[in-house]
């Protein structure tokens, strides 16, 4: 399986296999249900959760509204603290910048802190083309990398794997990359963690270059933050001589004090912890402490285009906690890979079609990968109304319209394959606009009820394959009403 998601099929097709994979469904169900219950408990402990959620939403909205100002302030702060800021409009530019920076050090190996931004741009694959090996050091990312797999969850990229599968991957692959797995490795968590620790330690001590993302960037001080559970990130952030951080431009907050809100809501929403075990912060460079060279690559890659959309821009509030994934009944059954992106689940269903556009088959199918049950909105710690954005993007798919792409206003055509649906919707609207026509249709359906097939043709087959259709009653309600109540208001 390749490390990228290019050419993925539409969501329903990709989900079809996942739904019928009993191991995958078992792994996902167990993991999401466990974290779901823990999260609810951790959130219930905080008496002012509603206020914190609202505060987080406001801080993010304010920052996004004045993003130009805060980004310039951040660049000044980082530069003043001894760092260097680079601007990357898209994935290619970001990858080129990072590859050039690594090559300038003369190194051909880098250690990586788990980062969604570098996954998004396919940095590891781009570096490999330049002869640079990037080693993932987050335990779950390591499992994914060793298994030549793709991440399927924002926070727990290897959520689709169980302990037995992980043991097999370690035993088979570790020796290809460095220190092999210990003899007689079992699938107990302690032994698996120890095997990863020994394997990774060699890499930490050897690496001269570290690459990270960041959970937050503080404009006023130029400080970057990574929160994590294992401490592997901190090793990468402090041991190498050169640190390169690739961060999406929306990760900024104006002041140090704003962190107060997110450092409460993020860990509780993501890992159900009161506080994440490791919070590492760095501001430029300091003599004799940590990396002596620091580069910040600010990544756009569709973010300013997303910002231009009044409804969809709220997706940029996301702090990547993954609470929406853990609570989503669709994610639980379809698995993370079906979303065709490093951002799976409900947030991925609104983020990917905005960052990448809705032109590919997979991106056009993502806005429909939801029953609109609203559980994602309910748990979101920055109150992203995911169902609202999904419906908005569905409109973009079926009706087209004006969008911003690479900074330019373009008019999208409706996506292909919706012609029959569009005609049906129009016909239904026409009939619903005329109570008489609706009534004629109802009566026809009632009169022919004995003739109705048990299964449906065309798109309806999807329904009748697994569910029985309701029988059409002999008399619609409105006929009963008129018969018994005499149609007092004399309507048609």
């Amino acid at each position, binding site marked *: 399986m390749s490390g990228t998601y290019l050419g993925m099929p539409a969501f*329903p097709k990709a989900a079809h296999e996942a739904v019928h994979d009993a191991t995958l469904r078992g792994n996902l169900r167990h993991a999401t249900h466990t974290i779901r219950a823990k999260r609810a408990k951790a959130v219930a402990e905080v008496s002012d959760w509603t206020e914190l959620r609202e505060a987080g939403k406001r801080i993010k909205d304010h920052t996004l509204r004045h993003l130009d100002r805060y980004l310039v302030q951040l660049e000044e702060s980082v530069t003043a603290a001894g760092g260097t800021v680079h601007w990357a409009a898209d994935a290619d530019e970001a990858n080129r910048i990072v590859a050039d920076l690594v090559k300038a050090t003369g190194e051909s190996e880098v250690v990586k802190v788990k980062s969604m931004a570098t996954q998004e741009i396919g940095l590891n694959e781009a570096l490999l083309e330049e002869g640079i090996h990037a080693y993932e050091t987050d335990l779950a990312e390591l499992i994914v990398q060793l298994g030549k797999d793709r991440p399927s969850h924002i926070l727990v990229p290897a959520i689709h794997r169980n302990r037995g599968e992980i043991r097999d991957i370690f035993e088979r692959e570790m020796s290809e990359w460095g220190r092999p797995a210990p003899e007689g490795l079992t699938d107990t968590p302690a032994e698996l963690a120890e095997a990863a620790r020994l394997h990774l330690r060699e890499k930490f001590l050897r690496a001269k270059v570290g690459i990270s993302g960041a959970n937050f960037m503080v404009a006023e001080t130029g400080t970057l933050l990574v929160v994590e559970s294992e401490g592997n990130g901190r090793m990468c952030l402090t041991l190498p001589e050169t640190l390169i951080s690739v961060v999406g431009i929306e990760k900024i907050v104006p002041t140090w004090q704003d962190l107060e809100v997110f450092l409460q809501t993020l860990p509780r929403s993501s890992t159900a912890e009161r506080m994440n075990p490791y919070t590492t912060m760095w501001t430029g460079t300091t003599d004799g402490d940590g990396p002596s060279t620091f580069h910040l690559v600010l990544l756009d890659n569709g973010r300013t285009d997303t910002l231009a959309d*009044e409804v969809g821009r709220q997706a940029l509030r996301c702090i990547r906690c993954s609470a929406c994934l853990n609570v989503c009944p669709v994610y639980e059954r379809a698995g993370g890979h079906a979303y065709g992106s490093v951002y799976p689940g409900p947030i991925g269903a609104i983020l990917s079609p905005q960052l990448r556009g809705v032109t590919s088959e997979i991106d056009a199918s993502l806005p*429909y990968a939801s029953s*609109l*049950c609203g559980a994602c909105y309910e748990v979101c710690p920055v109150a992203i109304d995911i169902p609202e954005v999904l*419906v908005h993007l569905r409109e973009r798919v079926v009706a087209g319209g004006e969008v911003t792409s690479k900074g330019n206003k373009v008019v999208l055509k409706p996506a292909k394959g919706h012609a029959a*649906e569009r005609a049906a*919707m129009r016909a239904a609207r026409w009939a619903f606009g005329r109570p008489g026509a609706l009534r004629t249709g109802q009566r026809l359906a009632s009169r022919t009820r004995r003739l109705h097939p048990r299964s449906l043709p065309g798109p309806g087959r999807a329904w009748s*394959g697994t569910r029985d259709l309701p029988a059409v009653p002999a008399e*619609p309600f409105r006929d009963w009403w008129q018969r018994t109540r005499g149609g007092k208001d004399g309507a048609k």
Partner: protein
Amino acid sequence: MRVALFLTCVNDTLYPDTGRAVVKLLTRLGVEVDFPMAQTCCGQAHYNTGYRHEAEPLARHFSDVFGEYDAIVTPSGSCGAMVRELYPRMGERARAEGRGDTLAATLAPVVPKTYELTEFLVDVLEVTDVGAYYPHRVTYHPTCHGLRGLGLGDRPRRLLQAVRGLELAELPGAEECCGFGGTFALKNSDVSAAMGADKVRNAESTGAEVLCAADNSCLMHIGGTMARLRTGMRPVHIAEILASTEEEPAV
């Protein structure tokens, strides 16, 4: 108080028993209820599938039909949420697109007056014991739009708990979506069916004879799955349980 029944197009066409139950129940509680014959559909299926501009004339039509009533009662959390939550949003969007305030002004009158049935009973009529009798073991599925869209809370369960003879069984994973989701059931039928099957298995584990909910579209999906899985359980709309009495029991 002039009360109108907004039955919804699905109930009218496929589930007329629910409509008859609402009329029977409200009449028993002393409410004179009218059924405006010009009513059709709130436009939710159009709106949620991405056809907002097709939904707008239906929303306008809804306002024309129901605008003059003091209260609009609907036995559907989903259609109720369409009016209460999404009509204001349709007005805002029209404004944002430079089409003025006309749509917002047209839709505004019906928004606060629209009540889902259990809300109307508990909040407006202020009753929880509606004098019903239903001697069965029942489990209750809170549908997503009623639960999270309208915030029905424990109103339906309070009403059910007051029904004589009814034994209420807790549904495991009650707040999880059944997988219907309108056109989702067609567009993502594999995932939808898997969600429906899990919902039915949870319902079966309660030992209840009946699964009730306040939305016939969810019940259509759950009931269709129950029938296919040969569970022997039945889907019943909450209105039919609340309308049932010792003199005239629902079957």
